[in-house]
């Protein structure tokens, strides 16, 4: 079968090698990582060993010199781990924590953070959301006060993926008292004195160490200011498109896999003397799921193609994020239903998949925020 655009045969080769690696090296442990609510840091080293943490980054920092499409392959395949939390931890590192350093960092910052991140030696996190500022980024309260040689940071961040394990946190801080979107800056904060994390327990993504991070009088040197002072809002906006595309791609991968597994279950499980797939209601449900998975893929690939071609694809990316996250959760919920009582049991994969998928319509900008963005784009 030939590759679906925008992917080429080269990408499909990468896909099969990534899939093989994941199924061999990561999937077998996924269930236990979920139970332990932690995946080991070595996962990053393993991925780095395959060059998978630097697919889109230049060779001078140890990357593979590829582009977003190569990374798109990885992101879609991460669903095959069978642990949303593990995929989230990896995703936070490659999709949201390191891109700002790549795009806005100084040469020295890239050598100090990006290169070791690509080698899997330093793990990154992105810190934007706060207990009192989620969707509303303009109300951030974490402050960075000017002191000799740098800044003193005070405040807290929450729902931070890799929040316990991260060696550095790319953190949004207020550098002026000015309200709104002005006066936000970014600092790369090393874990150290004054930085403390407490892990949060969640509906899903259990293998991820999502945390609240507190900063108490944390000194951050001037050399760790990322991008221009007071212009952090641009930095936030710069990566949103890729973050949201990555979420859409994750959903596409997860939906395909869940559909395939559930269809197989329906062919095997019998009730009333025949496989449940032979009952019309179940057959039609599965037909809808296949259609939904295909639709999600088409919408996402279209946005991805535009994004990679350098188009201003804000509308398409926003739509892809909105459509796929809800569709993915609904598909998982229906898969759970088709599994019946078994669907409710931890022993099977499906309840975990539903719990993991539920984050989609909330994280990376909630469905409501996507609709707000679309509303503005549509001149409403």
């Amino acid at each position, binding site marked *: 079968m030939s590759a679906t655009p925008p992917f080429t045969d080269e990408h499909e080769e990468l896909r099969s090698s990534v899939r093989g690696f994941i199924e061999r090296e990561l999937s077998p442990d996924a269930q236990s990582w979920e139970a332990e609510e932690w995946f080991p840091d070595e996962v990053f080293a393993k991925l780095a060993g395959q060059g998978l943490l630097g697919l889109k980054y230049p060779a001078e920092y140890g990357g593979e010199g590829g582009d977003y499409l190569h990374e798109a392959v990885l992101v879609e395949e991460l669903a095959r781990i069978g642990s949303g939390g593990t995929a989230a931890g990896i995703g936070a590192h490659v999709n949201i924590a390191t891109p700002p350093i790549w795009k806005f960092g100084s040469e020295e910052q890239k050598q100090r953070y990006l290169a070791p991140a690509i080698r899997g030696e330093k793990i990154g996190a992105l810190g934007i959301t706060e207990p009192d500022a*989620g969707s509303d980024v303009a109300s951030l309260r974490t402050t960075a006060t000017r002191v000799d040689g740098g800044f003193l940071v005070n405040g807290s961040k929450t729902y931070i993926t890799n929040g316990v394990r991260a060696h550095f946190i790319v953190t949004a801080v207020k550098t002026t008292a000015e309200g709104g979107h002005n006066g936000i800056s970014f600092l790369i904060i090393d874990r150290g004195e004054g930085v403390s994390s407490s892990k949060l*327990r969640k509906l899903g993504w259990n293998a991820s160490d999502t945390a609240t991070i507190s900063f108490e009088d944390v000194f951050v040197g001037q050399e760790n200011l990322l991008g221009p002072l007071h212009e952090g809002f641009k930095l936030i906006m710069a990566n949103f498109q890729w973050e949201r595309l990555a979420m859409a791609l994750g959903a596409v991968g997860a939906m395909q896999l869940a559909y395939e597994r559930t269809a197989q279950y329906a062919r095997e499980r019998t009730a009333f003397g025949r496989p449940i797939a032979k009952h019309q209601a179940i057959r039609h449900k599965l037909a809808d799921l296949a259609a939904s998975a295909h639709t999600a893929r088409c919408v996402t690939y279209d946005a991805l193609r535009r994004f990679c071609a350098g188009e201003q694809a804000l509308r398409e990316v926003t739509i892809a994020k909105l459509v796929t996250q809800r569709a993915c959760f609904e598909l998982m919920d229906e898969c759970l239903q088709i599994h019946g009582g078994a669907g409710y049991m931890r022993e099977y994969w499906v309840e975990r998949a539903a719990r993991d998928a539920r984050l989609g319509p909330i994280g990376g900008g909630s469905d409501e925020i996507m609709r707000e963005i679309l509303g503005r784009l549509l001149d409403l």
Partner: protein
Amino acid sequence: MASTETVLKPDHQAKRKHFIFTDEHEALRESIRSFVLKELTPHAEEWEETTFPDSVFTRMGELGFLGLDKPEAYGGQGGDYYTSLVLAEEIVKANSGGLAMGVAVHTDMAMPPILAFGSEEQKQEWVVPAIKGEKILCIGITEPDAGSDVAGIKTRAVKDGDGYLINGSKTYITNGLRADVIVLVTKTDADAGYDGFTLFLVPMDAPGVIREKKLEKLGMHASDTALLAFQDVRVPESAVLGQVGKGFYNIMWELQGERLIGAAGCVAGAQRTFERTLEYANERKAFGRSIGHFQVIRHKFAEMATKIESARQMVYVTAWRFANGEYPVREISMAKLHAARVAVEVADECIQIHGGAGYMREYGVERAWRDARLNRIGAGTDEIMLDVIGRSYGL
């Protein structure tokens, strides 16, 4: 003539008692609620980890809450059907779906068939201590290879001298680890179709009854759910519950009461989650105002309230029919289907309204969804309800 002011003023805050309930029901409601809030709710978090203790049964037995609608002759309160509805509604305030389920299996699923079909000895042996909370009941229908398809069960009870020998397995059994006795659905005649089923009361300490494992679930963590095996379990003739060969019909009757009580629990659970989320939406601020004051969020609440009200009316009217001696299988199936869906939709919407907080365990709303989700599967899936309703029209 009334003045415009008095006629048109909406009275949203007025307490409205549904016509099926009397002042006595409301007094009962008060007393159950205060017990639940004082003695159960504070332990909800802990019991998610440990499952709720058996002492909940003994305490509820002491208070008379395990036999509200059961005959006084067996230690019950002799109340009407609505009293059990009141219990189902108020116990959700314990914030523990697993606890509510464990109690409902005892009072509204396992106990009714013993009272309806049991011998006097069986009632004395099991119902009397069950109402006191000294013995715990469970019911075994589903098997690893037979869920929706009840007639497909394989657990066999074979005549053996003056008793029966039982072999098979049962799964997803609520109270399965703690129960003293199980109402067990078996096949006694493989060739008799629907006339080949028989119920037994099997003591859980009988040799050959094996509690194979405690099952881990999406939700309902406060409840112990078990996989059970029966290996050459020998029971006397007196263990037969009801008539030999009538088990299928008896269990189908039992399921009606179970579904209606389950539906009532769904409505009350949805209402509880709605109220907690309403509080959150009034407090949580974004973009300079309470999120409840954004139109989209306000409409979400309006939708939820309307859905909950529709499900509540279905449950109450169906309960009224049931209490008046009708056997409204179609309406019960509709109420169960609709209430379960509403409970899950409301919980999901409440997660969404909570945003990131909704995904966190700390707020309890994700648990409400995990617990509610069972209702579209347990006691007959949505698909089975649709089948029952569709067939009721001759289709």
